């Protein structure tokens, strides 16, 4: 974990008032950047990560030594072309990759904050990341983008700072977390909290770690990221390194083995308390309610160009919920584009190599950047 030292971060000194009522100050926000900020400082894109992401969107993540979570989309000549754009991505507060979160050491006890970390919201995450604009002296971002919880942050960002981004790309997300999604998150949290090593949220992370609970949470969540058709085509009823059923509870089926592997890989890189806090932030997200039941009001002061994308096989953040955002924007005459991309890869599509999706974003960003500069729009 010594690679943690290589991470970039800013210390946010000014107090930030959280939705829960608490105030935080002097806290770290870890970030990474790709590409170069141009002289006019008009080519910056702030990317928001999803539930289990981090600031390492591209290249090799120095902590996990794996490819960044959005490596398909961010990089030279990719959808977010780092030859042209300066991409910034921060670890959300509540996360576990260097930003202020439950793993942060409490100076009073010299132990991780654990469950003493305040409950945070999507709004809090966005307000913290907004400080990056000051840090880089960027007056206005070219774009804000993100999928899933990243998309929720995009919506919250434009609502909070209506004229700080020229383009907004909320992908596979919602303006209001559904009962079904709260239910799945609750399942994950209960799995973690019923692990004996959770220790009421005050596990030390060394001797005690609620790995089993966190792995189950990940396994359950992982199913929701895929589609039935995708699973059937990839795994079907194939058996795992055996020719017949073993009449036991081993992983007979490939899908079982796959899920167990996903669970075990996840616990190496993620903190169980972070999982609790971030899923809670998603559940609390209701931009419609924040604006008195009228989502349009969230965007009424904004001149931002929106491009909303959903996926046909995404049943976690289905097209209908993405379309609600489009409808709210059209109701106030906002500049909005929307497309539903056809794919069997489920909610995970936004993280995967879906050429249609990636090329449309790439062309949209490049053309829009040119058009804005030519003042055509």
């Amino acid at each position, binding site marked *: 974990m010594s690679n943690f030292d290589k991470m970039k971060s800013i210390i946010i000194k000014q107090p930030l008032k959280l939705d829960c009522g608490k105030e935080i100050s002097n806290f770290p926000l870890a970030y990474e950047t790709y590409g170069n900020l141009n002289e006019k400082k008009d080519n910056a894109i702030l990317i928001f990560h999803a539930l289990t992401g981090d600031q390492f969107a591209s290249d090799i993540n120095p902590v996990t030594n794996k490819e960044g979570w959005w490596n398909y989309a961010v990089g030279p000549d990719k959808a977010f072309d780092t030859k042209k754009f300066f991409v910034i991505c921060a670890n959300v507060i509540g996360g576990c990759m260097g930003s202020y979160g439950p793993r942060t050491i409490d100076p009073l006890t010299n132990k991780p904050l654990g469950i003493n970390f305040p409950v945070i919201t999507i709004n809090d995450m966005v307000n913290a990341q907004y400080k990056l604009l000051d840090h880089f002296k960027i007056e206005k971002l070219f774009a804000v983008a993100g999928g899933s919880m990243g998309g929720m942050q995009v919506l919250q960002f434009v609502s909070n700072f209506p004229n700080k981004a020229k383009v907004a790309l909320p992908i596979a997300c919602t303006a209001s977390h559904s009962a079904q999604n709260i239910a799945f998150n609750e399942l994950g949290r209960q799995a973690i909290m019923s692990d004996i090593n959770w220790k009421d949220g005050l596990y030390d992370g060394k001797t005690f770690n609620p790995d089993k609970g966190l792995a189950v949470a990940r396994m359950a969540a992982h199913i929701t990221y895929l589609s039935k058709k995708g699973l059937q085509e990839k795994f079907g009823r194939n058996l795992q390194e055996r020719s017949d059923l073993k009449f036991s509870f081993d992983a007979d089926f490939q899908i079982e083995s796959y899920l167990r592997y996903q669970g075990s890989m996840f616990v190496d890189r993620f903190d169980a308390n972070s999982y609790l806090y971030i899923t809670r932030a998603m559940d609390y997200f209701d931009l419609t309610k924040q604006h008195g039941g009228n989502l349009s009001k969230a965007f009424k002061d904004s001149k931002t160009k929106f491009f909303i994308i959903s996926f046909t096989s995404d049943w976690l953040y289905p097209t209908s919920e993405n379309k609600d955002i489009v409808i709210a924007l*059209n*109701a106030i005459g906002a*500049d909005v*584009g*929307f*497309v*539903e991309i056809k794919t069997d890869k489920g909610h995970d599509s936004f993280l995967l190599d879906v050429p249609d999706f990636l090329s*449309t974003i790439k062309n949209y960003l490049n053309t829009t950047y040119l*058009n804005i500069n030519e003042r*055509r729009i």
Partner: protein
Amino acid sequence: MKEEFKVISELIDEKSRVLDVGCGDGILMEYLLKNKVVDIRGLEISKEKVKKCLSNGLAVVEGDAENDLKQFPDLSFDYVILSQTLQAFMSPENVIKNLLRVGKKVIVTIPNFGHWKVRVDLLFKGEMPITKNLPYEWYNTPNLHMCTIQDFYNFCNNKGINIFQTISLNGQKTSKITSSNLKFKNLISELGIFLLEK
């Protein structure tokens, strides 16, 4: 095609807010952006075409005019354009009603089924006509509700829709259609362009 765009463009005031319903791959939108300073949006049912529009930076929403016009508030656009698409809807009457709700003015262009070539085809061959503007066979045509310029003219009158202008397009030639030359123009026009208001 270009002639149609020119006529449409001339009907639109500068600095207007425009919605192109069934915008296809966005060529009319591009034309209007180039030739008029307009704030323009598109609605298109085909994913492929929507992706093409978005790739060109156009503000186009994937959707179906029969269901998705609902989301636009009353009179939210100065002009709503429906170019050669009316005949493809299940319920053209409802679509027109919605267009007139959303737009202060509505421009509808109609491939004319009353053109003499169409009539000759049906009269002498006894087969459903296939022309430049109507290139499909009867069994695979997306055109469910073909009409003539005269049909649409009568429709507007019967429904109390105000027709501001009707323009005939025949090859490169444009001309005005009036109630007195309607029968003749219905015979020689390939395309009818209507400027309407509720």
